[in-house]
């Protein structure tokens, strides 16, 4: 008899916190609000630890059914929660990092208006995220999935007086909904074919199938549609556009939701569905290709960003691309490994960036920073650790996970590996660029650079740049005036403590996955083994033909080919070399010869402009989808059909026709962008066709 863990309490606790603060927080003092939020989030984390402590005595997966949510005829969905190795890892990451960021926020948000609102939303996010992670069926997972989207919407738009923040929140929600559309259709397919959405029952039903190597079947369709959902939530091509805008939210939110936890939900979902993906090699290939492209593409954009948070945002997109690459080559546990280390170092990077922004009075433009290492040493050192971690320098955490991804990618196809290594170089370059621009050289900003050190001793009551109660609504306007409260200053201890803890994790967090080639035994991989190993599809070996279609037996973890040991070491050397090269180049360009970047940008004008403008993707989407849709709705449907045709007003009809012809004329104007658009449309059509074919197979 397995013990009753009351798993449902884990998400419900933060929900209670959210409800208390949301309903009554207005009358609470800030201390009370913070205490409530921390207590309920901390309780969830404590429960997670408690479960981890007795984990070895559980029979896995441990499922607990609370009640029935939905029933219609034979189909029903339960409020049921489950824990296995994979969800334990996720649970610890989400509740642990989440708790740290709650602590950090107590200090960071102290001077902001709407304190109770912020913590209510933050706890609400924890509720949905923990639901997502603990759900034992797809629909409950979808509840968490949509819910974290809501929390993200609320928190991105937290400074709602700023139009850009409100627009960013809306954009995030709508773009996510496009992904959710795919997720929903995948669920319908599962209901149709398996009559259930329960993980265990779906996977049991899938297991007898052999991989759909010849052509496309419904498993491929399900996998592709799930991937569409994952691409929305985890900001992959073509749905990544919301994440950079999401930086409008307060920085702790960027750390928690848009770096460490929510955006990794897509990776978790794909890993969770690995039984399906393994039987859909072409879908896996799409996952790998999208991951690789996104990793590279976002990294190139990251190079030219000047807003410190935007650099980190594109970096997040890029790192998520790595995780999808790992999943796409069926190295799911490696993807989760990188998810974990990324949660540590990217959470840390954002929190440290928040500390930097805090220090210089709300400034986010790195061109107005510089030389800060002397003023904010704690922030500097912790951020340094995180930068080395993401750059893949050993023995920091990111090195182990990234190196493992690249190695596994190479085993699938050298192209993935090559792009991955180039991306690793780019990553290292833009991160050290950030590092040098922020902490080295001369201070270029407007805040007084004096007496930074003695500031943080008396930080209890003060903190926050100037009158931050109203500052949030203006803080990101670029050239914020020097705040009259006295210079660059280190953050209070309540903000520094999470930085230090995450810094430690950014070092040691990777050691659990010490690879065999370096004399370790990759315990992380072994721990997740039972989740990912059980389902090796029964497959004949001859389908391991081409390089891009992976040999499925590769996904049995720990069974690495022995001949690869030497090769693997060489590859490790190459990827570390790429990281060091990025460091060197960033040093050369941004510390040694700071005039060079401008010259380079001038000489590579077209390319630089494309990168700096993020390849005009936002503009392309606006022009391709948003504007035509609004024109269609307004002119054709409403004024044309509704008022014109149906209400039979001749006047309106004529107007509608005229405007319609205008629209058509616009569409014919040929330019390069439209060709690019057509390529995108073509790719979409191919994937849509695959889905379609899959849908039709019984």
């Amino acid at each position, binding site marked *: 008899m397995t013990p009753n863990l009351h798993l449902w309490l884990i998400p419900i606790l933060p929900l209670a916190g959210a409800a208390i603060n949301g309903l009554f927080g207005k009358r609470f003092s800030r201390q009370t609000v913070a205490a409530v939020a921390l207590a309920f989030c901390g309780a969830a984390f404590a429960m997670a630890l408690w479960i981890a402590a007795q984990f070895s005595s559980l029979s896995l997966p441990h499922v607990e059914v609370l009640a029935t949510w939905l029933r219609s005829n034979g189909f029903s969905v339960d409020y049921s929660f489950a824990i296995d190795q994979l969800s334990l890892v996720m649970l610890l990451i989400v509740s642990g990092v989440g708790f740290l960021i709650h602590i950090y926020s107590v200090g960071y948000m102290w001077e902001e208006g709407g304190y109770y609102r912020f913590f209510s939303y933050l706890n609400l996010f924890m509720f949905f995220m923990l639901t997502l992670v603990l759900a034992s069926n797809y629909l409950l997972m979808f509840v968490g999935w949509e819910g974290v989207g*809501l929390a993200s919407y609320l928190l991105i738009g937290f400074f709602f007086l700023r139009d850009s923040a409100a627009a960013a929140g809306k954009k995030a929600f709508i773009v996510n909904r496009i992904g959710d559309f795919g997720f929903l259709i995948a669920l*319908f397919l599962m209901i*149709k074919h398996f009559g259930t959405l329960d993980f265990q029952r779906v996977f049991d039903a899938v297991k007898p199938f052999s991989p759909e190597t010849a052509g496309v079947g419904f498993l491929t369709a399900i996998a592709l549609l799930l991937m569409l959902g994952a691409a929305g939530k985890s900001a992959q091509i073509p749905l990544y556009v919301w994440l950079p805008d999401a930086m409008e939210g307060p920085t702790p939110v960027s750390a928690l939701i848009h770096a460490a936890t929510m955006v990794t939900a897509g990776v978790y979902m794909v890993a969770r569905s690995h039984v399906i993906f393994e039987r859909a090699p072409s879908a896996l290939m799409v996952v790998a290709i999208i991951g690789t492209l996104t990793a590279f593409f976002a990294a190139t954009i990251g190079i030219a960003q000047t807003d410190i948070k935007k650099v980190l945002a594109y970096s997040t997109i890029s790192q998520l691309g790595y995780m999808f690459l790992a999943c796409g080559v069926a190295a799911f546990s490696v993807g989760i490994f990188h998810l974990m280390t990324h949660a540590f170092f990217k959470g840390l990077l954002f929190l440290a960036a928040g500390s930097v922004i805090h220090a210089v009075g709300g400034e986010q433009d790195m061109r107005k920073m510089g030389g800060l290492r002397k003023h904010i040493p704690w922030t500097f050192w912790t951020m340094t650790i995180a930068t080395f971690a993401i750059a893949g320098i050993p023995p920091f955490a990111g090195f182990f996970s990234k190196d493992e991804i690249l190695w596994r990618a190479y085993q699938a196809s050298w192209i993935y590996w090559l792009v991955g290594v180039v991306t690793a170089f780019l990553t290292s370059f833009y991160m050290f660029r950030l590092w040098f621009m922020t902490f080295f050289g001369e201070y270029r900003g407007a805040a007084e650079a004096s007496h930074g050190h003695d500031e943080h001793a008396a930080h209890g009551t003060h903190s926050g740049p100037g009158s931050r109660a109203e500052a949030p609504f203006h803080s990101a306007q670029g050239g914020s005036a020097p705040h009259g409260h006295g210079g660059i200053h280190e953050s209070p201890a309540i903000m520094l403590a999470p930085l230090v803890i995450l810094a430690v994790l950014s070092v040691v967090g990777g050691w659990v996955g010490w690879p065999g080639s370096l004399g370790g035994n990759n315990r992380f991989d072994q721990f997740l083994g039972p989740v990912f190993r059980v389902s090796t599809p029964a497959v004949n070996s001859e389908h391991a033909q081409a390089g891009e279609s992976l040999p499925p037996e590769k996904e049995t973890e720990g069974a690495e080919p022995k001949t690869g040991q030497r090769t693997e070491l060489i590859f490790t050397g190459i990827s570390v070399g790429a990281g060091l090269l990025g460091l060197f180049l960033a040093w050369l360009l941004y510390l040694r010869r700071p005039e060079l970047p401008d010259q380079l940008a001038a000489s590579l004008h077209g390319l630089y402009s494309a990168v700096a403008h993020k390849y005009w993707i936002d503009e392309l989407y606006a022009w391709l989808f948003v504007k035509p849709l*609004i024109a269609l709705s307004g002119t054709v449907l409403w004024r044309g059909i509704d008022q014109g045709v149906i209400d039979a007003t001749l006047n309106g009809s004529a107007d509608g026709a005229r405007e319609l012809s205008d629209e058509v004329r616009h569409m014919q104007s040929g330019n390069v962008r439209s060709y690019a658009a057509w390529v995108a449309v073509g790719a979409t059509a191919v994937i849509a066709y695959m889905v379609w074919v899959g849908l039709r197979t*019984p």
Partner: protein
Amino acid sequence: MNWLDNNILTLVTFAPAIGGLLLLFFPRRDRDIRVFALVVSLLAFVLSLHLPAHFNRGLAGFQFDKDVSWITTPNIHYHMAMDGISLWLVVLTTFLTPLCVLISWKSIHDRVKEFFILLLVLETSLIGVFVSLDLFLFYFFWEATLIPMALLIGMYGHGRRVYAAVKFFLYTMIASVFMLAAILWLYSKTGSFDFVVLQSAIRNGSIPNFSGNLPLLLFLGFFVAFAVKVPLFPFHTWLPDAHVEAPTAGSVLLAGVLLKMGTYGMLRFNLGLFPEQSRRNASWIVVLALIGIVYGALVAMVQPNMKKLIAYSSISHLGFVVLGIFSFTQAGLNGAMFVMLAHGVSTGALFMLAGILYERRHTYEISEFGGLATPMPAYSTFFLFIVLASLGLPLLNGFVGEFLVLSGAFQAKMWWGVVGATGVIWSACYLLWMYQRVFFGTVKHPENNSLPDLDLRERVALWPAAVMALVMGVAPLLWLNAIDPAVHNVLVPFTQFASKVVGR
């Protein structure tokens, strides 16, 4: 059967009208009239709670049956009964009416007495539609809803109220004539107006000359009346006008309940009496429903007027209902019923919210607002909550119905589900865009700076809807338990040719 069970439907149906009748003799003291109307509507609500409390959820058939001969020639019966389909629609009506009274407390200050009499009479006729099993009685209540509603719009509406009232009246009246013709034809062949008798007569094939085009014409006779009421694309253009001009309470009942008369009629009469014809015509009806889902949403997106936006969103939501009904799947029908209820609660609440704003600013133009979250935080929180319910956020009421409808439609024909599911994108677009323009940013019009937040009465009117939206989303089984057997019963004749419909 005790006396109460035997007569409960009569009591619930006529309690509001009797209250209205008593109001006639009230002195014109507005406050007393309001209080009395509130008490009557609350009483009706409490009475109606007897229904779910004593409803036998295991039974699929009709309960609380009351069948007495009313007029012998023609053979008209006073036949009332309810099953799981009508049960919640009645409770929805009695649930919304007290909220309507509360929300009209201040906004109606002229001819107060007449207003509340009309409202209560409207409630009676709405309930009557859902519980009548005699087609004559049904038709009587059906048309009876028109008069108070048209008067509410025409007397208490805004600018172009007379135009809107006449348009509403003519549209639905003309469409109803076809239904009347169909009812009369059925009576002429069977000598009965009774739904149960007619249903078995048609199933047994005991109606003479029931062949050729006749079943189709009868089916269409009913269908047109219902389609206009729903309203199904392209019969929908009366709705935005009616909503924009109607007073808040009128809009709440119009969107919340009156539209459901159409979908209820389809479920009860089109499917119940003419399963074969329903099946044959499903494909084009579903296409209209799908067009309605997408079209309503897209047109809603570009509306400059908040109330028109909500009106078009209703067209989109009701498209889901029709899609679910004509998918002939258990999930689809369960979902359709649930969308009806959820839409009644959340769109009713949206109209109340729009009305609250109108009381303060006397406009529905979205461009007149902006930044309202600052002066009206509680109001904007309620609004957001209802918006989230309406756009189908899981754990709120909108999601359950849409999910079931779409999964049912998907099982019937895959592309139905796929096209319908785009609705999840559109609804987020138009609702969140509207929300952003009304509430976020800085206050653009100085007069909005001093807008008062919700007062106690408005909170009392909104809280029940918000709580209901949450409970329906978290524990939908409380409702679905009663619905499931009833819709299963409706689907029985379809199971024999289900394979042909679902066949791929």
